């Protein structure tokens, strides 16, 4: 685990960025671009007006979930094979689930989503992107049809990540599956329809076999997570 922690150092630094829903911590869509180097203010230069904060809001709820399931060839050989397979993979499933929770925790999901144009992917207008505290209770995250933040903005959308699931199967190999929910309140209703979907793609490095592979494995996790999100977003149609 020490090596995992080492791999997470930049993540911890990024985690200093607050995750609360206070306005001071919101991020304008424009601010998602790569930060420009800070230059000294030139007194002669004309004052630059701050870009207006968009009226629309996208609230993003990452997940704390991390599930892992490895099944081998034995699982196809009746009761005895399945029981033997489950017993032989138990420790691996525990360690890989714990690794996944660390390597693709809430901050990593946010980092991954910040690497793409989230608003364009969801076909949303310029919006403030607000990263929220994860919701542990799945009955709330997957069933509550009302807003999950105190915001009363008329142009308001929620993106909820509800699953991080690593599987390794004898035939299909390794893959990461994610589930997403989008709740679009731009129709003005208090209760809204939940658009649920998933994305799943193969992994080739994760889980790492050696310490040297950790950085590449973690990067692969993030890349596949983004791929999964884009797969979901491709099929998502915004409310009319």
């Amino acid at each position, binding site marked *: 685990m020490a090596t995992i922690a080492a791999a997470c150092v930049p993540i*911890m630094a990024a*985690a*200093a*960025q*607050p*995750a*609360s829903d*206070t306005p*001071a*911590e919101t991020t304008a869509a424009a601010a998602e671009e790569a930060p420009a180097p800070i230059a000294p203010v030139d007194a002669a230069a004309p004052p630059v007006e701050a870009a207006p904060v968009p009226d629309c809001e996208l609230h993003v709820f*990452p*997940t*704390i*979930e*991390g*599930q*892992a*399931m490895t*099944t081998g060839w034995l*699982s*196809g*050989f*009746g*009761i*005895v*094979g*399945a*029981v033997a*397979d*489950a*017993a032989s*993979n*138990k420790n691996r*499933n*525990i360690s890989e*689930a*714990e690794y996944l929770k660390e390597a693709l*925790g*809430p*901050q990593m999901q*946010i980092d991954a989503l910040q690497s793409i144009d989230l608003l364009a992917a969801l076909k949303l207008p310029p919006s403030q992107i607000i990263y929220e*505290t*994860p*919701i*542990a*209770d*799945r*009955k*709330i995250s997957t069933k*509550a049809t*009302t*807003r*999950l*933040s*105190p915001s009363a903005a008329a142009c308001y959308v929620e993106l909820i990540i509800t699953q991080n*699931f690593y599987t390794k199967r004898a035939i299909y190999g390794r893959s990461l599956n994610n589930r997403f929910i989008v709740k679009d309140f731009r129709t003005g209703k*208090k209760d809204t329809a939940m658009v649920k979907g998933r994305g799943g793609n193969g992994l080739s490095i994760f889980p790492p076999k050696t310490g040297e592979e950790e950085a590449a494995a973690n990067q692969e996790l993030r890349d596949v997570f983004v791929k999964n999100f884009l797969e979901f977003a491709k099929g998502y149609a915004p409310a009319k």
Partner: protein
Amino acid sequence: MIGDWGAAAASGGGVLRPVRHRKPALRLLIGLCLAAVVAPAAMAAPAPAKPSAIVAERDRAADDRAVQIVLAQKWIETSVDVGRVASSAGGGGLIGAIIIESMDDKARRMRDAAAQKAEATVAPLRQVLGDFDADALVLATTRAALGQIDWFRPRDIALSKDASPDGRRAFAASADAPQIAFVVYSYGLSPDFTQIRAVAEISLAHQATGKARGAAPAPYYRQTITSVVQLDRRSYAPEDNVAAWAADDGRRARAALDKAFGSLERTIPYALNLTEAELQRLTGKDREKAFGAGFYGPLIARDPDGGMLLWSKSLVHVQTLPPANEEG
């Protein structure tokens, strides 16, 4: 016996013959199975009535109540949530799945590991809260809360560290009052360390009389009240949140604990005074729902400072610490 002869008689046949029971062994087997299922339930002692979430008018009329406050913990507690754990049942059919599930202890092992990690993470906060007098706080909270209820008439408020049923039984046996009230407190951090939660579980019971005296009191009322105070600036990293609570000799944690127990002081009388009609109105399906600090349910009231009281299986009050530059 009519049944045995009935079919032949109804058919109008000339010779009456007894109708043979088909598959008597199967019927016997079904009968035995039913008996095996029903008999234990029928023989078991009747389950005690489920405590109500409101105090009925007739129960409020007692002369006075002996009150025991229970605070069993020594320091601020942690909690863990490992979420869903993938099932290992990948084959072997139904029987295989039952066997695999019965030997699957992944969730427990993951919870144990998470609990161990949480205990290590909270250490800096526990250190700075070493002088925090939770006993005095719960005593003051209970006295102030119960003192606001006209009909409650608390007597002999005692603080105990023993949360066991034996402890309750002993208190009830020694109390000289027609009713007994237990207020069990706990306080701790949410699994992500962004919240401090204080919980009060209130139960009321009638004093047992005659031969039943000395038995465990069966409560007629039980209600849990949760008071949550969350950090204004929350991090996804638990250790950052602990650092925020612990900074300046635990200034934020102390403020949150004061706020949380202060809220309980107001909410306990509210909960005990609720009537059946009010409870139905508050928990109605058509009532506006709200979400706060991981809780979701019908909204009861919003505070001017952004806090809210909601019903999420029980009363939950959610508050947020003001930003550092707005603290008084």
